[in-house]
């Protein structure tokens, strides 16, 4: 009888799934610059197709969702880009160039990776854990364009 119970207990435990924890990570870009703007990503000077974004003033766009197994911080929007620079163009055609880590540019006004306003730097994104339980975590990463960004453009 004991062996029967042992087998059934084994069946119960063993029938549990191996991977049970999970996460969901969403990335948002908010435009609080007071004007409309457009994002265009480049790699080696060539426009990366399909990644361009138009964001109206006061608009918040969900740009990426990553979810899978493991209760951990998932991937942000940055992993999707496969880009080394970003040109933000505002409604009046003023522009700002942002550079990925280690990228040099002849444009002395380009925003370096280390700058606190560079979108490529995940440290400049606001991280919010919006749900956490024993087996699951959900995280928001949010980057907000502000008026200062627009005023810097030329």
């Amino acid at each position, binding site marked *: *009888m004991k062996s*029967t*119970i*042992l087998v*059934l*207990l*084994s*069946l*119960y*435990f*063993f*029938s*549990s*799934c*191996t*991977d049970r*924890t*999970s*996460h*969901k990570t969403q990335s948002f870009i908010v435009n609080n610059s007071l004007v409309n703007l457009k994002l265009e990503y480049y790699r080696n000077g060539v426009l990366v197709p399909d990644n361009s974004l138009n964001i109206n003033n006061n608009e918040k766009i969900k740009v990426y*969702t*990553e*979810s*899978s*197994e*493991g*209760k*951990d*911080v*998932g*991937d942000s929007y*940055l*992993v999707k880009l*496969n880009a080394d620079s970003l040109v933000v163009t505002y409604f009046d055609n003023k522009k700002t160039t942002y550079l*990925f*880590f*280690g990228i040099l540019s002849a444009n002395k006004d380009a925003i370096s*990776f280390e700058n606190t306003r560079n979108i*490529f*730097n*995940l*440290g400049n994104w606001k991280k919010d854990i919006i749900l956490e339980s024993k087996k699951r*975590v959900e995280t928001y990463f949010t980057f907000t364009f502000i008026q200062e960004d627009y005023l810097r453009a030329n």
Partner: protein
Amino acid sequence: MKKIIYCLLLLVVFNSCKREENAPNNNDDVATKIGDNNGNIVLGKKLENPYSVKNMKKAYQSLAQQQPNSANKSFADENAITTTHYYVRFLPTDSIQYNKLKADGSLVLYPIPLDYEIIDAGCNTQEPSDKPVWQYTAVKKTYQFDPTIKYEILEDLYLPEESSTGTISTLSDGSKSTYANKLTGDLVNESMKMTNNLKDISDSGAPRKVLYRPAGRITVFDTRLNKSIPLAGVEIRGRRWFNFKSTYTDANGNYSLGYFGGNTNLSIFYETGAFDVRSGTLGQAWYNGPHTNDPWSFDIRDGVQRFYAHVFRGAFRYHNGNIGDLKRPNYGGKIKYCAYDKNNDDINGDASPFGYSNHLGILPDIRIFRYSNNIEHLSDEIFSTTVHETAHFSHIELMNWNLLQFQQVSNRIAESWAVAVQWQITSMEYKDRGITDFGNPNFVNTNVRRLRYGYQYWNSDIGSDYTSLFINLVDNFNENGAFFPLYNITGNINDNVSGYSLGSIESFLKHCYGISSTREQLKSHKPINVSDDQIDLLLNNY
């Protein structure tokens, strides 16, 4: 005591991981059930079966009238044409019965009837993934049916044996036959003609002068490589009515089948000796190719077929390819890779040692999903997820399939091990295919997040049980101070340990339950260039 057992039984049966199985589909309207306009196979009209005993006798009578002497030399009389086989179909009610049928080596199962015209032959075929469907084949008259599995004998067949020595005979009309006995070939040809299946034995009405030997190459498009690569090890089946032949593609994706007497249905079955890929919970993943007498090569470019092919690739690499010094999974039966053409936001795949299709189904399953957040996984993701889940099975096997023993292994050890195996085998695969830095600390161009930067960016702040522990025992990169810009993380794990191989760790993995026991095992089996202090320094991060 009985109450306790009853409760435990209920727990097992109603465990939350269970996926519901639907009742068998009893709709007999085959053409409308299987055929549709959504990329699935479309069947046409039912064909007159040339191999039925009834039609073979008619053919005999016709031949006897045409060539009385020849006919009499072959068969003493018409009564010699008797049932040798049955054309049958099985309807398994659940995964247990389906697995039983699949495990029967004498059965060559098709999820479509074998006596129907196939109108849309070149498109995808897909069974309803969670519903058992009729399985069609021919069995010898002496076949012992399992009385617990529903079956129907559809027709009595007379299937004369082909030459076992490969002898090819020339028939009366000048065509060639695989039957050693010329008169047998004449009989089959006559029956083909009389049942309006002339196209199966002739070229535009003229007798076929040469036999057909199907051959070609199977490739699959890889989104990471942005090119097509050979699909090695997959089963290619040829079928001319009830004559089945099969082979497997070689490392270059090439195949060549035996001779057929005429037009042949060619198909891909994502199955090999140690495993098979399912189209969901139940049903074989397969592709129904053309009905042809031409060479057939096929490049699987997209769609669910590409998904199946990459699941197959990952499994095939682990079971048959170069995996370094890791051991092969050895379950003793076929591992079922259930490939779901579905979205799952929580997991890319998982492994359930007791199976998802039925918790009392005895055989285990691995689940792989095609989409996450409604975006299709890329080729390297599918490949590496398949490897990851297979690593769990291999790990369980190391514990001698001791259920309670494996349950004591911490998630951190189990998942970190699978991550390391995933990293090693996927990196080997893509390095072999030309991405020479795949899985290295400088490599980022993959959607597999735990292979990006060789997972050297992992630290305790990232959390989860999926750590870089076993990777760090193998690699020779110290991430301490290295910057990983996509994550804005500076590595803080001081990893001075290298020289282990995953195979060497695997030899004592069964004794690793948590960090403490792993630490002890590592020290007991350390390479000569590694000190206990270095091991302590590394493992203190986990």
